């Protein structure tokens, strides 16, 4: 066990963790954050996607030990069910979920794109989102929801 301080959604969290623990388990079990999901543990499906500094990363593969001093953001940082952020609101408006297990990861990967490129075209969105899998076939709505925010000129995601 080591004391590891993680900065998650703007708050510093001092945790007693095994240093090889992937970020996913620290978020879920030590910080009680449900957004990032276990899907494959291999970085192949993106269900665990969170943003570290400004990059989307696979929380299932990223050991906590290397994350001290970095800014970690999960879907919980975008807003709440009662007060959804713009991208979350777009997902609600487009009803862009079926089972929804992949959706928090989708939101974070899309958020990372929109922060760097606020108005991506559809082709860019498809390329960027290819790291994340959805089995229900909700892809078209996910693209619509991202495009909705991407098309809102002057607004920030």
């Amino acid at each position, binding site marked *: 066990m080591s004391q590891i301080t993680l900065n998650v959604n703007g708050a510093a969290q001092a945790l007693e963790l095994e240093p090889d623990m992937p970020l996913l388990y620290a978020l879920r079990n030590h910080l009680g954050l449900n957004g990032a999901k276990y899907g494959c543990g291999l970085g192949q499906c993106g269900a665990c996607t969170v943003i570290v500094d400004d990059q989307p990363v696979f929380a299932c593969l990223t050991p906590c030990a290397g994350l001290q001093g970095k800014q970690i953001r999960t879907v*919980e940082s975008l807003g709440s069910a009662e007060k959804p952020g713009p991208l979350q609101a777009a997902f609600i408006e487009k009803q862009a979920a079926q089972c929804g297990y992949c959706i928090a990861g989708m939101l974070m990967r899309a958020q990372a794109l929109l922060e760097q490129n606020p108005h991506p075209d559809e082709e860019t*969105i498809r390329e960027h989102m290819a790291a994340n899998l959805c089995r229900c076939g909700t892809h078209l709505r996910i693209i619509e929801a991202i495009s909705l925010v991407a098309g809102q000129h002057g607004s920030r995601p």
Partner: protein
Amino acid sequence: MSESTGLNPSRRAFLRGGALLMAFTLVPMARRALADTEVDTLGTVVLAPDLPGSLRTNPYLDAWIRIGTDGITVYTGKVELGTGVKTALLQIAAERLQVPASALNLLTADTALTPNEGYTAGSHSIFDSGTALFNAAAQVREMLVDSAARRWQVDPAQLTTADAMIEGPAGQRMSYAEAVSNVDVHQYAKAQSPSLPAADFKLIGQSLPRLDIPAKISGGAAFVQDMRLPGMLHARVIRPPRPGCTLEAFDAPAIEALAGVVKVIRDGNYLAVLARDEWQAIKAMRSASEVARWRGGDAIPEAADIHTLLKRLPSRRYPISNNGDVNITGETRFKARVTKQYLMHGSIGPSCAVAWFKDGMLTVWTHTQGVYPLRAGIAEMLRLPPERVRCIHTEGSGCYGHNGADDAAADAALIAMRVPGTPVRVQWMREQENLWEPYSSAMVAEVDVGLANNRLQDWHYELWTTPHNERIVNAGRLLPARLLAQPFTSAPSVPIAQPEGDGDRNAVPLYDLGATRINMNFVTTMPFRTSAMRSLGAHINIFAIEASIDELASKAGVDPVALRLAHLSDPRARAVIERVRDAIDWPHKNSEPGAGIGFAFARYKNIMGYCALAVRLRVHPQTGEVRIEHVVTAVDVGQIVSPDGLRNQVEGGIVQSASWTLYEKVAYDAGGIRSYDWSGYPILRFTQLPKKVDVHLLDQPGEPFLGAAEIVQGPMAAALGNAVANATGRRWLNLPLSRSTQPS
């Protein structure tokens, strides 16, 4: 080699429950045309055959609706699988109670609280539970109005209801909660419910935002995976390298000594670790996998020979449709072999469950499709009376059929019994889900069909399949129970009867045919464990039928859409076809090289939703890679409850079926299953999506609900096959539609 080749109807599932064809009406006097036997194959008993929907199996009104001072609670035995059914059922109940949807609390499947509606499967939820609520809610409302009328001594016809209040002609007001105090809702439902013209619907037919989405986009506790109970321990299971292995040696003390490990469980070939922290459990599982020494194991067949093997293995032959006189002289013929590989459900979230054995009662939170059958299976496995086991449905990742959900629940139950008083959460790892979920069966079909004078003549179709319905009818159907020192054995396999069908689902074309010789060879020795996956055999059967229609049309020089229309008299079938034909400007196709257009049609199970679909695509001339340009579909599922929910299901079905049809097959060789992760079992990614999808909804106000979730799987596969043939001039009949799967 076959065990028998004759009909043995006593082995058809529909007789097990004692139920034959069941009539169904949405509203009184609607036409009674539907059969539904699947529910009866899945553990429910028909008590009231004359009642609509699941009132047949749960006829008491208070099984569905209870009104108290704490509000109105609506109960369903169905579960939310990610289809939006919870919201749709709420709309139906609220419509008929004449209350706002927000006034209702809806509880889904829980063996302590809700009706037993068997499995949530087969596009049956709105059909069964929606119809039950449509009627039960109206009957309860009528009882409340009658109660107020008696109190006020006025004619009930003079009363109105709104927002859970009853109003009388003199301005009297009474809440539903007050009115219910003079009513006994514990009554058998009546066959006839108060009528409500579809034109007066306020909620049915509206796209209410789904209740479950806000939590899912914000990190709410939306899934069983998100449950955290006080003092909860984390478990992981260690499975053998393949079925049939024996655990020869295992150094349990070495694993028990690892950090955080609370217990190591070994029972025969069953192995699990229990730790305080999930990461510790995973590390202990990995160490345990390294020290466990297994021997033996079932032989795994060669993938290249699987379809030949299926035809050789012991099977029972079921006649499906054998009508008319066969006359095979002098007409256009199409003869072919069509094959499908093993497929995975491929849930994004591996299966998970939480169990807690406390004060002699075992509670299991599970994403099973059927809490009641699961309860019976777990109770038998643990030798507990069923009333000491409670299964509560809690959402998981989408399952699309019988995946690892029930087995993971059995894991949690077994492990929780070893630590009484302590809740246990177990989740499978990705490779465990991929290696141990029941697959969708590999199949082979032989087609020999004829056309003469532009009329479909004799239709020969011989099908080989392993089971599609290995649901939990005994403990042996639960994988962990087979690994125990005193193992349980799976109940004999039984196919679901026609008209629902099993591997033979949609094996009978809806088209007018001169003569049929359609038979299923039900292979009972499974090289791989197989069970239900969205649409069962309909995926390959519709693919094969629609390929045959196109080939016959091509040989005879007639338009394939016109040929379909010429053999369909049902106006609703014709309507979806004509809508798609016109919307895609059939048969116009892109003139670029490699471009193709394909059409397909089916009515799901020949008794449920209608779907016509056309695809425009391009096949890369060098690589054979398929790019889908445009999909147009028209669907008719009867009275639409939620247009957007229906659209979401259809869009998802198109994408999922495209993935199955173009890319998917379980890879294996004599050494084992190779598809243990997403690199070994690639599914469609964003870059492979259709560029454009248009969904046309043909509403049928006031007509029965027909169900939507599975109607597009077959037509999408078939239209892809026909479009590839149109693009390349070559008929690919081996799924998936990649060059490497076709004979050289």
